[in-house]
């Protein structure tokens, strides 16, 4: 996002924000902060910059600090830019038992990055995450809204190749 671009939700998102606020009693609109941060992250390049968080605070009529403290608590909110495809590989017990480490190592080798890093072309960020509730179909990874399960090294190769070809930002809000 270029720095002089105005931060404002699309009309559809703004309508959604109004709808979300109505889910709670009068005066409790702060409850909508997490859903709205999700919306903001998806709409503003996959991460939450300070100006974006300030914008969310203004929409909810709360203090910016109330947004920062929430955004920094939850692991799905990115406070730094990430690649178009954030590859989140589960490395907790059940996935580890069935080879999650090999999956992480393989992706790292293929993309030339380590967990926590982004490829120079801005396409991929690799991240290890804790149990995603998919232990029966281990090993697995999440990218955007989608769970990729029962992974093999071959499946991972195909997946990364497809993503690269598609060249599209994945978000948790994608319809899958």
């Amino acid at each position, binding site marked *: 996002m270029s720095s002089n671009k105005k931060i404002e939700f699309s009309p559809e998102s703004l309508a959604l924000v109004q709808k979300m606020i109505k889910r709670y009693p009068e005066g409790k609109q702060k409850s909508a902060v997490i859903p709205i941060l999700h919306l903001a992250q998806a709409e503003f390049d996959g991460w939450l910059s300070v100006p974006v968080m300030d914008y969310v605070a203004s929409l909810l009529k709360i203090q910016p600090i109330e947004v920062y403290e929430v955004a920094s608590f939850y692991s799905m909110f990115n406070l730094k830019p990430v690649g178009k495809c954030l590859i989140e590989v589960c490395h907790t017990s059940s996935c580890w*038992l069935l080879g999650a480490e090999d999956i992480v190592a393989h992706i790292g080798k293929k993309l030339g990055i380590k967990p926590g890093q982004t490829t120079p072309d801005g396409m991929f960020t690799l991240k290890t995450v804790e*149990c995603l509730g998919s232990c029966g179909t281990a090993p697995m990874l999440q990218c955007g809204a989608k769970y990729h399960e029962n992974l093999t090294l071959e499946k991972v190769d195909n997946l990364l190749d497809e993503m690269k070809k598609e060249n599209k930002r994945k978000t948790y809000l994608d319809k899958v």
Partner: protein
Amino acid sequence: MPKKLLLTHDHVAGINTYDVYRQMGGYASVEKALKSMTPDAVTEEVKKSGLRGRGGAGFPTGMKWSFLAKPPGVPRYLVCNADESEPGTFKDRYLMERIPHLLIEGMITSSYALGARTSYIYIRGEYFYVSRILEKAIEEAYANGWLGQNILGTDYSLDLYVQVGAGAYICGEETALLESLEGKRGNPRIKPPFPAVAGLWGCPTVVNNVETIAAVVPIVNGGGEEYAKIGVGKSTGTKLISASGHINKPGVYEIELGVPVEEFIFSDQYCGGIRGGKKMKAVVAGGSSVPILPTELILKTAKGEPRLMTYESLSDGGFQTGTMLGSGGFIVMDETTSIVKNLWNFTRFYHHESCGQCSPCREGTGWMEKILHKILAGHGTIEDIDLLWDIQSKIEGKTICPLGEAAAWPVAAAIRHFRAEFEEYVKNPKSIKDVKHYYRLNNLEVPAGLPDIEEKAEVH
């Protein structure tokens, strides 16, 4: 055939849609409750059923409901806990994804019993796509008159919303969940007051697990007494078990409580035995927080009786020789598994997920992770094993929420039952698998002097 009450139609095509769900008898419990029962009569059936909370603690649901304060003029809330983040647990996701209307139906019937006019389903953020499935089901329920104003022409009205989280295991703890639902950091609250008195926005609130709420549907339909006929003793009804690890058939199984553990692991109806013809080494029976047990003790109690899948049988022998049913996250490990490394994995998880409010939990989980890390790196000493024991014993009972205990118990159990393996790692570091591999993976400098062990893969 064992009886199923929740996953009766999970393989029927289109069961995720309203029309098919309704054709299969869906929403009958709402009709029955709203048209022929008082709210208290619904609670009474739940009490009779003996249903216990399926989120992990196993607290009797009917009793929890009867504790709900009912001051006049103050709203009451029902909040469904769909945070499901306990490692090894994935049953709620299966249920919501396959049969979303079962949860919606349970929410309506339960909300009626509690007198809630607005209810929320709090679902972990990673399940965003599942939240869309639930939202669609809710839309269909509104369109067909099961939600909204004057449901079925009665004077009962209910609004139901889905709220997504954003990645935090601690938000599964009920008071942290309520904080999160109020738009705050997920820091657990000091209790009392309990949510039944002061919960969401300070109002009386019941928090129940997805499976608990779904179970209310068959209880109301068939009656609490019928439900209580299934199972053994105080473990009534059916339970969803998430089976994972080194087994032939991982997945979600609905069992009648009381199935022998041995049958559950080895019969083809359930887990289908250990992969690749290997031997079983250990089982974590109820999600990462419960004590790990070696093969001898998971199959039979210390008294030599076959262990059953019930709350009582799994905890027989206390923490010395028993474990817990917990959330039903059943992780099976074969003979090749490093118990020390698995423990490090769990401990890293708890350290990562500690909210940081209490020093014993925040610092203790970190220390334990570091010590296990040191042992795995081949630098451990016998004193380190004792230090681990000491730290875990100083977390238990000294924290605001039970995450502290959840982090301490696995450490205690692993040392209690597998001390020999820890000592072997200390005395003979060459027996440790994958050491450098581990360092490289985690982006750490490989310390000098590590045993030279062949690596499976390498990150450059």
